[in-house]
Structure formats: C-alpha cells, structure tokens
C-alpha cells in the first residue's frame, strides 16, 4: 500500500487504504469524500472518462491543500488520492479522507478540500460520449486558477 498522504495513481483507488492513513487514537470522526464517474451529466450520457494530471505539480498542490487545512482546522489529518487514466462509469476518481477529534472540523475540512482541488490542482478530465469527446474545463464556472 502506498503510504503517501497525497498521491496521484493510475490504478483503482482502494478507499479503505486512504482512510487508514488518517486514523489514530485521538480520532473521533473521519469524513470521506468519494468522487465517482456519473453516467448522466445534464441529460447527456457519459461512456467513460479520461483524467490527465501534471503529476508532480498536482501532488505538490494536494499537499498544499493539506497544509491549508491543518492551518484552518488544527488537529485534523488529511489524505487525498486522485486517479488518472481511463475510468468507466462508477469508478472512483478521487478519495479525500479527513480525521479529527470532533466531527464538525472533519466535515468542513473535507468540503474545503474538494473545492480547492477544483481550483488549484492541475488535473483535467476528458468526457467520452457516443457522439464525441471533450476536455472539460472550469467546472466552477469561473477562471479557476489563481496565482500562488
């Protein structure tokens, strides 16, 4: 098992491996976000997806999100694994696990993590439909990159 807290992988993600990374005796709550490939988006049927990453930078930016979280919610621990390559419907694209002594911080930090991933982590998604393909950009519907 990969023991890095922040990683990009090209094989199926084992959710429980990510969860194990944030466990400890002073954890009372663990929140997990699992992003999966959905069949329908705005009524259009997705056949499969392809994720591409600027891997070295993506790992750095995931770690940066981890630092931001520790600063905002002390005593939490974060692990994030994002998959790249071809994914089918229901496959897991990303798993975020956050542990904390108390549940409020675990929920808030987890929701923060997925928002930040969509802002600053260089990973792109290409949708494959029956009638074509498209690289999806800017799911937040604004210019999402910010400067360092």
């Amino acid at each position, binding site marked *: 098992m990969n023991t890095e807290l922040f990683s990009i992988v090209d094989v199926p993600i084992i959710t429980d491996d990510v969860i194990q990374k944030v466990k400890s005796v002073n954890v009372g709550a663990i929140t997990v976000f699992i992003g999966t490939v959905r069949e329908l988006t705005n009524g259009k049927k997705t056949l499969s997806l392809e994720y*591409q*990453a600027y891997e070295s930078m993506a790992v750095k930016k995931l770690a940066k999100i981890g630092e931001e979280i520790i600063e905002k919610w002390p005593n939490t621990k974060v692990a994030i694994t994002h998959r790249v390559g071809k994914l089918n419907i229901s496959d897991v*694209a990303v798993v975020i696990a956050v542990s904390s002594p108390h549940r409020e911080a675990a929920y808030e930090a987890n929701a923060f993590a997925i928002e930040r991933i*969509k802002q600053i982590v*260089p*990973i*792109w998604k290409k949708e494959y439909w029956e009638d074509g393909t498209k690289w999806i*950009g800017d799911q937040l519907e604004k*210019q999402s990159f*910010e400067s360092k």
Partner: protein
Amino acid sequence: MIKILLFAYLQEEIGKDSLSMETDGCSVQQVKNYIHTHYPTINLDQVMAAVNEEFSFDEDVVKDGDVIAFLPPVSGG
C-alpha cells in the same frame, strides 16, 4: 533553453506533450507568443502558466533550464 509542457486539449491540438524554446530568459507572455507564432490556431491569452510547478503571471521571467507548463482550466475531482 526552456522546456514547455502541454496538457489536455493543448496537448491534443499541438500534437505533442512538450516543446523546447531556445532562450536565455524571457517573459511568460513571450513564451505564449512563441507558441502562437508556431501554432497560429492556439491562443494562450486566457491560459494559466506554471513555471517550475508554481502558478505564474504573464510578466514573470522564465530562465534557461526552467520548465513552463500551460494549464487549461482544471477539472479534477
């Protein structure tokens, strides 16, 4: 020389995942212009750049040995 990395649709449209550019130092904007000159259909005006894996501005300087990446709006998660 600087190394230029391309991702997502930029990689597909240019047909390569990286390019090289001979220069001792220039701005990010000049790299964008260089690509537009060689690939006129590619317009990088609204595309973010990262120099050595940090987000950069158009006026930032790229030096010999640096790696500059052009990053379409991200869609991870």
